């Protein structure tokens, strides 16, 4: 082991190769010879889409490969020692002390049956770093540095008793307790709301700077990475496409793939379709004083009231966005309109016809006109049925189509969503995320609807794939005269497809405005907070961001 001099990198990765053995016994290469350095105190971002290998590379810094994967070659030197050659025991000694990990979902990474503080200081117990009392005092210091509320007592709670944003910061405290030289952040803010993300990012950055700790920040979101990373490594298919200083990558990307990633950030203006004369009179969807909720009912009102007095209308051929943070009632709104969750008060009118609240009481013709597409294509498609069978079901139900006629229509539908006809013989498990979401869309189209309720349909997709789905939806709208109710927490996606936007907060619509004027027209304080919290592709954005602390205290979900 050589001494580490001032100029030596802390991390030196050379020609790293990681392979996996599939269930069928086939061997595939996931990481195909990756090399990079990290200087002490430097934060390097690994950016790429799902399947690019960014998390796999990050975990290999700790000598860990997930089930089925193995490090097959190359060097991973951390402070002069090669992790790739270490025994499992030596790796265990390194984990938590030299290199530590902040997971994507702290909610899943905290053991539900143990107190937070015990888990935060566990590293010091495992590696016998310091006495328990000292570790606890240090944890409280970290809680304070990470701007957690009640730093002295928050540790005595259980994971389910604190919010998501707090848990994510507690996970950072857990990673920092052993004074690591390198911290791996694995998409640590992806699961958070935008207003929460800001505070978490700020907290991460300040503790990393204070301790001069190096970091690997894994993310798919360039705007988030721009706020925290010194350098960016762009990955695709297990290979490095481009490496550069953050500002350089943003201003002067060289590789076409980097340009593509950046282009997905460019706001795409949406142009409204010309409205036909008939549609101007009756809105395709009209919601009046709608109330809905969950739980046992008392006096006709459910225990948990989620939607309160929702009122809006959507003209045919127009698109209405619904934005808001988790728990604001966006998905519940779609469920109440579709009748999956019957509203207990108020009216839903589709094309001027009043709908019964319950799905079972609606006529087949009413059901046909309104279709819903869910967020997770994985769970919305029956894994045991072929794509052809999945698409044939609505054809038989709504149009009585069978046999050759249905098959022809299935091929047409697949063509509409730009998928090859041969896909109809495949099972959902054999498709990519983007393909599955297209099948999901095709299933909705099979009914020949006039209104499609889209519930976060691009949220689980990579940026580029999601942008392509949005493009497809616009084309379909022009061809088939559809109207969309588009629910999303991602403001730029909403901007790309919607004419108008509803802002929801705690089950109420707080504001309605034109989608292309969100930044300038928003008047409600919550809308302003929400819109200003969306990260921009500018490394100075977070520093320059000033938000009214009173507003944050009132509205942010921390």
């Amino acid at each position, binding site marked *: 082991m050589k001494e580490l001099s001032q100029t030596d990198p802390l991390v030196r990765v050379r020609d790293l190769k990681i392979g996996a053995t599939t269930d069928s016994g086939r061997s595939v290469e996931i990481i195909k010879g990756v090399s990079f350095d990290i200087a002490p105190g430097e934060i390097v971002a690994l950016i790429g889409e799902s399947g690019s290998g960014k998390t796999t590379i990050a975990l290999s810094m700790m000598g860990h490969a997930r089930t089925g994967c193995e490090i097959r070659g190359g060097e991973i030197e951390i402070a002069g020692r090669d992790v790739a050659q270490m025994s499992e025991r030596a790796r265990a000694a390194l*984990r938590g002390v030299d290199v530590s990990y902040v997971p994507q979902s702290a909610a899943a990474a905290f*053991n539900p049956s*143990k107190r937070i503080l015990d888990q935060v200081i566990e590293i010091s117990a495992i590696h016998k770093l310091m006495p328990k009392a000292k570790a606890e005092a240090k944890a409280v210091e970290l809680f304070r540095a990470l701007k957690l509320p009640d730093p002295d007592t928050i540790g005595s709670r259980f994971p389910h008793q604190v919010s998501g944003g707090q848990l994510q910061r507690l996970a950072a405290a857990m990673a920092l307790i052993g004074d690591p030289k390198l911290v791996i952040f694995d998409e640590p803010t992806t699961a958070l709301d935008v207003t929460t993300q800001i505070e978490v990012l700020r907290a991460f950055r300040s503790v990393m700077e204070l301790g001069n700790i190096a970091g690997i920040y894994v993310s798919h979101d360039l705007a988030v990475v721009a706020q925290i990373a010194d350098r960016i490594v762009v990955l695709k298919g297990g290979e490095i496409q481009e490496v550069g200083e953050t500002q350089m990558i943003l201003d002067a990307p060289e590789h076409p793939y980097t340009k593509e990633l950046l282009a997905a950030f460019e706001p795409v203006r949406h142009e409204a379709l010309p409205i036909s004369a008939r549609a101007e009179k009756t809105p395709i969807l009209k919601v009046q004083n709608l109330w809905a909720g969950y739980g046992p009912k008392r006096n006709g009102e459910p225990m948990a009231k989620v939607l309160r007095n929702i009122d809006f209308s959507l003209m045919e051929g127009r698109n209405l966005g619904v934005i808001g943070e988790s728990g604001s009632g966006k998905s519940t709104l779609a469920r109440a309109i579709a009748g999956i969750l019957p509203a207990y008060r108020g009216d839903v009118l589709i094309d001027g016809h009043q709908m019964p609240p319950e799905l079972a009481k609606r006529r087949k013709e009413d059901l046909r006109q309104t279709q819903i597409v869910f967020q997770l294509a994985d769970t919305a498609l029956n894994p045991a049925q072929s794509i052809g069978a999945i698409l044939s079901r609505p054809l038989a139900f709504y149009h009585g189509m069978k046999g050759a006629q249905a098959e022809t229509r299935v091929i047409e539908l697949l063509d509409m969503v730009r998928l090859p006809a041969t896909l109809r013989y495949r099972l959902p498990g054999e498709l990519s995320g983007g393909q599955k979401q297209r099948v999901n869309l095709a299933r909705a189209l099979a009914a020949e609807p006039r209104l499609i309720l889209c519930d976060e349909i691009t949220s689980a997709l990579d940026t580029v794939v999601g942008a392509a789905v949005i493009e497809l939806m616009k084309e379909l709208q022009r061809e088939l005269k559809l109207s969309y109710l588009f629910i999303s927490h991602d403001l730029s996606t909403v901007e790309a497809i919607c004419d108008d936007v509803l802002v929801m907060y705690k089950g109420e619509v707080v504001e309605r405005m034109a989608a292309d004027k969100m930044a300038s027209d928003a008047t409600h304080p919550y809308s302003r907070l929400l819109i200003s919290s969306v990260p921009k592709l500018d490394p100075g954005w977070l520093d320059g961001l000033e938000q009214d602390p009173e507003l944050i205290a009132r509205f942010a979900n921390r």
Partner: protein
Amino acid sequence: MPGSLTLWFLVLQRLGIALLTLLIVSFAVFFATELLPGDVAQILLGQAATPEAVAGLRHAMGLDEPAILRFFGWLAGLVHGDLGTSYVNKMPVAQLIGDRLINSLKLAGVTTVVSVPISLLMGIAAAMWRGSIFDRVISTLTISLISVPEFLVATLSVLVFAVWLGWLPALSYGADTSSFTALLKAYAMPVITLSFVISAQMIRMTRAAVIETINTPYVEMALLKGASRRRMVLGHALPNALGPIANAIALSLSYLVGGVIIVETIFNYPGVAKLMVDAVSTRDLPLIQSCAMIFCVSYLSLITLADLIAILSNPRLRH
């Protein structure tokens, strides 16, 4: 609603459901035995009895009352601990069952003490070293044991240990129980047979429950903190697998009270299961009903206990 209130509500609800189930079961037991063919009075008096004598006995035994009235009378008796009188030998059912039940509970207790710790240990160890030779041997052994019928296990062990080797007495009951070693010998064979039968299931279920929690992100997190395998499994996975493990144990143990007829017969062990089969052949309704109720109560209390452990081990409800 605060967590602890929800917790007590759930516990009370579970106990309420158990009581309700017991009521429904008692109803089913009573009327199912009513459906047994043959007339008790006729059987007791024999073929030669005059119809008047049979009618007189029916009246004396209260058999001519409507079934629903007799049901409530029986139920009220049960609540007060009065199990009725045997039709066959006129002895109180409680007295008939008493010794047998203690025998059954002794056997069940010893088997529990032997098999539960071994099963937990083996199941957890197999999960801890998943995929190792040890795990594969355990998996193969347990699946083979589940497939072998218990009469075969029992007969084979009699053949090997009592007949060929002569180490253990073939019959448990009436064997010498004066010293501790003698007692151990007397119980060894039925306990071994029963342990084989119930351990296999417990080992498999424990292994599955622990493996399921090992695959969670928080156990991976523990690995990334540098935790040893032991710490990962015992400290992080096991506490979260308690609910399913308790259920697996309860299901296996409930078999020990009512389902051991084959073992009791082969080893001539006078337990409740054997008593019930004898009662069926003599159409001794009060005895059958009481035995059935004992089986149901023991089954129900084990399952309820497991459910309560699952509820109480859920940190979201406890805190």
